[in-house]
């Protein structure tokens, strides 16, 4: 029973990790790639950790697994935000199919237009 649950969790988790890597390879720009790659660290690693906790089954490894899971759930979003902000401010080109660029719109620029000018105006 526990082996079957572990097997299901590991198959689902490794499938999520592989899909995240495929998405990282196929997505068109940095921001969509980042959105895909954070799925690996939440869903993929979460499923793999549940399987590992079921398989190991003692209290010490459960605490370690829970701490890895909580830490990654906290830091993945922070890291993704930091990279997204840095790459936007570094003028990484958006995908040409981007429909909404709120910051560029607030600065009266087109989505793919030049964002290199007065980037200091509304930067918190």
């Amino acid at each position, binding site marked *: 029973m526990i082996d079957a649950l572990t097997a299901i969790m590991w198959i689902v*988790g490794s499938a999520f990790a592989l899909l*995240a890597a495929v998405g*990282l390879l196929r997505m068109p720009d*940095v921001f969509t*790639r980042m959105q895909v790659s954070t799925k690996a660290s939440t869903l993929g690693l979460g499923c793999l950790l549940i399987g*590992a906790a079921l398989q*190991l089954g003692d209290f010490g490894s459960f605490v370690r697994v829970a701490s890895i899971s909580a830490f990654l759930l906290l830091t993945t979003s922070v890291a993704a935000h930091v990279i997204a902000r840095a790459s936007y401010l*570094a003028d990484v080109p958006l995908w040409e199919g981007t429909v909404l660029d709120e910051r560029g719109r607030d600065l009266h620029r087109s989505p793919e237009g030049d964002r290199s000018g007065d980037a200091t105006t509304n*930067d918190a």
Partner: protein
Amino acid sequence: MLEMVTQFALVMLGVALLLAVVRVVRGPTLPDRIVAMDLIGVLVVCLIVVLAASTKVRAALDAAIVIALIGFVATVAYATYVRRGHPE
């Protein structure tokens, strides 16, 4: 059965690592490579967790914790590096 599933999961994680390495090599910009390195760190943690559970080596989970910590700090440091090249 679990041995087969373990090997299957390890193969899929290995292929995912290879695809992430391809993105690191191809770029095309520095933030792309940073995102790919972040994903590589997460995939290494995944590999260590699966190996620790399948071989019952519980000490490897501590290594996974350390790699997760270092991966976060490295990502934030890379992002700071990107920002430093483009001051506001």
